[in-house]
C-alpha cells in the first residue's frame, strides 16, 4: 500500500517510478529533513528568545550593566529552551496544517519576505521595550495593531491567524499560570500578574516562526522534488 502510494506520489511529481531502495532513502531523507528543520527552528527560537529578553531587560537596565555576557543569561535558564521548543513545534505545525488543509501557503514565499517578517517582529519587541508609551492600554493597542499588520503583510492565511490566536492564548495562559505559581515574575505586571501586551508579542512570534517554518518546509519540498527528478 505504501509503495503504491509512493509510486502515485512520484507519478504526480512527474518522475519515473522509483525503485524500492530510493523510496526508503526518500523516507529516511524526510525524517532527517524533519529533524534538521526542527533543530534549526529550535536554534532560531533560542536565539530570538535571548536577544528579545535582552531587549526587555533594558527596560530597567542599570546604568552600567555588568560587563560580559552575564546579562544575556539574566532570565531563568529554562526560558530560552522553552521558547526554542515552542518555536520548533510552531514551525513544524504550520506547514503540517497547511498540508492537512490542502492549501499550501503561496503568499510571498521567499526568504527575503521571511527576513522582513523577522525584522518587523524584532522591531515590535524593540518598540515595546524602548518606546515610552503614555499608558499600557496605548501600548497594548499599538502592539496589537502592529501584530495584526504583521499577519496581514506576511501571512494572510486563515489557518495562520487561527493558529496564531490559539497559541497566543495558550502561551499567555501558561505564563499566567507560571507567574501565579511564582515560577516566573515580572518587574511590573500591569494586568493580573502579567504584562498586558504579552499576547501581542506571542501572536507576532507565532506568525514569524510559522513563516520561517513554512519557508524551511518549502525548501525541503524543493529538495525532494529535485531528487525525484534526478532519479
Amino acid at each position, binding site marked *: 500500500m505504501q509503495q503504491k502510494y509512493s509510486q502515485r506520489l512520484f507519478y504526480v511529481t512527474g518522475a519515473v517510478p522509483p525503485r524500492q531502495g530510493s523510496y526508503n532513502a526518500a523516507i529516511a531523507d524526510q525524517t532527517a529533513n524533519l529533524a534538521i528543520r526542527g533543530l534549526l527552528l529550535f536554534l532560531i527560537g533560542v536565539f530570538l528568545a535571548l536577544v528579545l529578553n535582552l531587549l526587555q531587560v533594558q527596560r530597567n537596565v542599570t546604568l552600567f550593566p555588568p560587563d560580559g555576557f552575564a546579562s544575556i543569561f539574566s532570565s531563568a535558564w529554562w526560558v530560552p529552551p522553552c521558547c526554542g521548543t515552542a518555536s520548533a513545534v510552531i514551525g513544524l505545525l504550520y506547514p503540517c496544517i497547511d498540508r492537512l488543509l490542502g492549501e499550501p501557503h503561496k503568499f510571498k514565499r521567499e526568504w527575503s519576505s521571511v527576513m522582513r517578517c523577522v*525584522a518587523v517582529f524584532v522591531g515590535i519587541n524593540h518598540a515595546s521595550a524602548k518606546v515610552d508609551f503614555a499608558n499600557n492600554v496605548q501600548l497594548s493597542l499599538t502592539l496589537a495593531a502592529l501584530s495584526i499588520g504583521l499577519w496581514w503583510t506576511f501571512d494572510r492565511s486563515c489557518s495562520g491567524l487561527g493558529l496564531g490566536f490559539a497559541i497566543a492564548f495558550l502561551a499567555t495562559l501558561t505564563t499566567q499560570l507560571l507567574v501565579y505559581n511564582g515560577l516566573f515574575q515580572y518587574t511590573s505586571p500591569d494586568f493580573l500578574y502579567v504584562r498586558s501586551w504579552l499576547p501581542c508579542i506571542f501572536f507576532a512570534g507565532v506568525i514569524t516562526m510559522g513563516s520561517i517554518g513554512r519557508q524551511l518546509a518549502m525548501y525541503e519540498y524543493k529538495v525532494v522534488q529535485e531528487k525525484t527528478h534526478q532519479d
Partner: protein
Amino acid sequence: MTVREKLRQKISAGFYWHGLLCASYPVPIILFTAVCILTCCYPLLKLPLPGTGPVEFTTGVRDYMVPPQEPSGDPGERPDWYRGPPVAYIQQVLVKAAVSPWDNRLVPVDAFRSPLGRVFSLLDEIRNHVHSDSSGVRSLEALCLQVTDLLPGLRRMQALLPEHGCLLVSPGNYWQNQRELFDSDPDLLRTVQQYEPKGLHTSATLKDLLFGVHGKQTGVSLNSRNRVVTYTITMALRHYDVRFLGSLRSRLKQLHPSANCSLREEHMVHVHFKEEIGVAELIPLVTTYIILFAYIYFSTRKIDMVKSKWGLALAAVVTVLSSLLMSVGLCTLFGLTPTLNGGEIFPYLVVVIGLENVLVLTKSVVSTPVDLEVKLRIAQGLSNESWSIMKNMATELCIILIGYFTLVPAIQEFCLFAVVGLVSDFFLQMLFFTTVLSIDIRRMELADLNRRLPAEAGMPPAKPGPLRPRETPPPPRPSPHTITLQTPAFRNLRLPKRLRVVYFLARTRLAQRIIMAGTVIWIGILLYTDPAGLRTYLAAQVSEQSPLGGAGLPHLAVAPVFPGGDPTGTLNVLPQADPTPALSENLSQGHAPPGISWGPEDEEGWRRLSYRHWPSFFSYYNITLAKRYISILPVIPVTFHVTPREALETRHPQDTRHAPPLQTDPSPNALPHGAPVQTDLTLYKVAALGLAAGVLLVLLLFCLYRLLCPRNYGQNGVQHGRRRRGDLPCDDYGYSPPVSEISPLLLRGHNMDIECLASDGMLLASCCLAGQIRVWDAQTGDCLTVIPNHGLRRCSSSGGWEHRDGWDAGAVTDLETLGGAEGQDAGGAGYPVRRRAAPSRPTLFGDQPDLTALIDTSFGQQPPSQAPSASSGFDFGGLVERAYLEHEPSVSPVFSAPPPQPVQRRRSLGDQPMAPTDWDSAVWALELRGNLIAAGRSSGKLEVCLWDAVEGSLRCSNEDGVSGITALAFLNNRIVAARLNGSLDFFTVDINKPLGLLQYRGGPGRGSMPPSPCYSSDDVISCQLTRSVQCAHQKPITVLRAAAGRVVTGSQDHTVRVYRLEDSCCLFTLQGHSGGITAIYIDQTMVLASGGQDGAICLWDVLTGSRVSHVYGHRGDVTSLVCTTSCVISSGLDDLICIWDRSTGIKLYSIQQVLGCGASFGVISDSLLVTGGQGCVSFWDLNFGDLLQTVYLGASSEGQGVRQLVVLDNAAIVCDFGSELSLVYVPSVLEKLD
C-alpha cells in the same frame, strides 16, 4: 469603465511615458538625481556624525556664564546639549618636574622619585588654599564635587580612589596621599604598574586616571629619555568660582613659576558625551543588522537575467540608503530634529521601505520581449507594474499613517521618517533605478540571452513508428528562425573565458558570501575584544583625524609648525638633534633648566587621554556622563626643579639595586621634512580639484547639449504599439504588448472551415467541412496532396458498392481472391472489411509527381486513353477497370455518372454537386502516423489512406456504418476508433510483404500496388478489426487518447475508461466527473488528466486508477488539456487558459483569451506556451506567466481568431484560421540580433 480602470490606465500610460523618458536620457537623469540626493542630504552636514564620540564646544573663560536650562534664541552658536550646568568642572594642575642639572651619580629612579614626591606638598597647598574676599571665605571643600562610595564592584580600587569627600586625584593616591608611605616604598614603578590591567585594554587605566596625562607622557619609567616627569592633579568642581580659581592659579604660579610658559588660558572646553552602548544593547542591535543584511542579501539575490547583477544590486541598495538619507535630510531641513537613535531605527526603516519595488521593476522589465527596443522594454516593464507599485505604495502609506495616529512621539517620528523615506524612495526608483536598469539592459548581450531560454524547444522526438518506412526523411530544416538551443554545458563552453569567470562568480555568489562572512567575523571580533573599548579606540582615532572633529583643536592647527614633535610621544623637547633653538631659548631665558619646556600641546593634555577617560572616571562613583557634559578649565602649569642633591636625599636604599647602565642614545630626531611635503600635497590637491571641475564642466555641457538637441525618441514605437491596443489578448494593463509581424507560411486551399488537423511533425493533414483532406509538408508548407471529398465519396460509394458486393458475395467469389476478405464477406456479419481503395486513381499518375496536384484523383474511371504517358500504371488501372466493368456491371452507372472532366477541375471540386446519392459523411476524426492517414467518418467508416508525396490513395477502409466515429487514436500499428454509440473498436494495421503479385493482380478491390518509387510497391496495408468493445460507454465517446500502451476514453456518461492497447482489456473505469468528459490528456509518462463539462479537471494515477487531484477551474466545459512536467494547462469555454501546479493542484495563474480562441494553445517546451489570438499568436513564459511576445500573422488573417493550434516537432506552429492554415516558425527570440 469604472473610475478604477480609468485611473489604472492613466497610471500605466504615465509610467509608460516616464519609462521612455528615462531610457532615452539616462545620463542627464542620473546626474539630476544625484544633484537631488546631494541637495537633500546637505542639511545632514549639520547633524553630528553617528557614533558615540564626545562632542566639544569651546567658550571663553572670561565671560563664562552657566548656560541657561532652556535653549536660548541663538541656536547657531551653541549646540543644543549646551544648557544647564555641567556635571562637573575639571580643573587640572599640570606639573612638570625634572632633576636638573642631571648628575652622573644619579640612577634612573632618581629621575622621578623626588619629582613625584613633590606632589604631596602641592596637594597640601591646594587643599589648604583659602580664598577670602568680601563675599566670604571659600575653600576647595566648599566648591568641589563631593563623592560618596565607589561602586560595589570596585573594591580593589577602594584604597586608591577618594571616597566620601572631594573628588581630587593625583599620583599621590597610589600612596594614600601619605608622604611616609611614598618614602618607604622600595619600588615605585611596581606600585604604579600593579594596578594596570593585563592584555589589550584601551579604555581608561588607573595610571591614566591618577596621573591625568597619557601614560607615555608621564616620564615615570626607567628609560625615560628626557627625564621630565609630568603629572596632573585633577579636581572636579561642583561650582565654578572665578575668584577662588583665579587666586589658586596665581598662588600656584607664584610658588612654582613656570618659565617660558606661554599657555593661553582663556578657553574652557565643554565636552558632551553620548549615550553608551553596552553589550546588552549591542546584541539586539547587531541582531537587527544581521537580519537586515540577510534581507538585503536574499532580496538582491533575486535579481537575475541582467547584465550586471552586482551593479543592479548596488543600485538597489543605493536607492534605499539614499532615500533614507534624503528623508533625514528633508526632515532636518524642515526643522524636525531627529531624537531617535539613528543606528537603532535604521534597519527597521530599510525593512519598511524595502527593496521589493526595485526587484519587481527589474523582473518586469527583464521579462519583456528582448527583441524590442530598450526604451520600449523599459516603458512596458514600467507600465506593466505601475498599478501594483502604486497600490503597494498607497497601502504602505496608509499603514504608516495609521501608525502616525498612535500619538506616541517616538512612533510618530519613525512614521514621519518612513513616509518621507517612502516618497523619496519612490522618486529614486523612478528616476535613478529605472535609468540604471535601462543602461544595464542596453548592455545586455547575447550570452546572457542564451542562458534564459528553455532547455529544449521541441517536443520529444517523433516515435519511430513502424509505419514510416521512408528511407530518407528530410532533415529538419535548419531555419534561422527556430530557437536553436544546446545543452547548458555546451553553451558554457562557447563563452569566452572572461565571461565564464564572471558567471562562475555570479553563480557561486562568491563575493557576496565573502562579504557576508567578513561582516560576521568582524562583528564577532568586535564583540569578543571588549566592544566598548575597541569602538572607543576607533572613534577616538576618527575624531582625532577627521577634519570636522579636529577643527577646533589648536594643536592640530599648529602641528606643522613643530614638525619634530611626535604627537603621541613625549614632550616637545629637542635635546640633541636640533640644539640651536633650544640653546638659544635657554640662553634667552637664562635661568631655565634644560629639559622642561611648555608648548601649546600642554594646554589641553587631556585630549591625549582616552575619550572614555572622563566617563569611566565618573562612573566609578555611579555618575553617568551619558547625554551630559563636563567643562574642562584651562590647566594651571606648575614647574618643579629638583636639584641633584635633593634627589639623592630622597633616594630609597633599594633604588640603586636595579640601576641599569644609563644608555646615552643620541636619538637622531628626524629632520623636519614636513614643509616641502606640505607644499607638494597642496599642489596635488589643487590639480585634482581643477581636474574634477573640468570633468564636471564637460559633463554639464554634455547634458545641456543633450537636452537642447533632443532626439526624436520612442515616437514610432509608441504609435506602433498603440495602434493595436484593444485587440490584444493580454491588454490587462493598458500597455501594448510587444508586437512583431512575421509572414507565416499560409496554407490555402480549403474552401470551407477546417475541422480536423493532424500532424506527426513532418506532415500535416487537414480536413475541412467539405470533407477535403489536404496533406502538407510541415517544413515547407507545400501542399503535397489533396484527397477531395469527391474521391472519398467515390470511395465510399465504391465501398457501398462493395457492400452490396458483400451481400451478393456468392456471385463474385471467384473474383474476390483474397482469402481474408472473402471470409469476412462470407461471414457477412455487418462487418465487411474492405481493404480496397479507389483502385485506379493512383495507378494512373503514380510516377508523375508534378501532375498529381492537378489531377483529380477521383477520375478513377477515367478512360485509359486520357493518360497515355502513365504507361506503367496504366495497364494495371485498365485491368482493374476492366475487372470492375466485367464483374460489376450493376455499378457502372455510378461510375459513369461523373462525366470525363478536365484535369483542372479540381479547384471547384468542393462546390460541385457530385453524387446524387447522399453519402454525406463528414470526417469527424483524423489521425496521421507515418504515411498513413486515418480518417473517421460520421458514417462510421474508417479509412486508412496511404499517403506519399506523389499519391493519396485509400489503402484500406473499414466500414460497419453503425455509428459515426467520434474519435480516433493511432498508436504504433493500432488504430482505436470510438463511436457515437459508445462502442470502441480496435484495429490492427498490418503491413504485409507481398506473397506474390498475382494475388494482388487477381484482386482488383484489394490494396492498390502502384509502382511507387519508394516503398509501398510491395506492401499491403491491411486493417483488421481485432476487437470491438460494444458497450464501452453508455453514451457517445467524446474523447479518445492513447499513449504509453494505454487507451483512454472519455464519454458523455461522465466516466473515463482506461484500456490496455495490446489486448483491449478495460483496466479501470474512472468516475469522478459530474459532467461529460470533454478533454483528456495522457502522455508517455503516464500522466492522465481529464476535464469535463462541469469545468473540473481531474488528475489520475494510471497505475492504480485512483484520483490524485480534482480541481474546478472553468465555468463551462474544459476544452483542452496539456500537462508538462510541472504544470497542467487547461482551457475552457470561458476562454480562460489556466495553468495549474501539477503536484499541488494550485492554480498558478490564468490567461484571458479573446472570444473564440479559448482552446487554441500549445506547449512548445516545458517553459514556452503559445496561445492564439485575433490574427496573432502570443508566447508566454510558462513558469512566470509573462508575455514574451505577440506575433501577428500577416495582414490577411487579422481579425480572425485562431481556432486551433498545433505545435509540431520542429517548433513550428500551425494555426487554424477558418479555411486557411498558417504555418509559423517560432519567431526567434534572438531576432534582434539578425
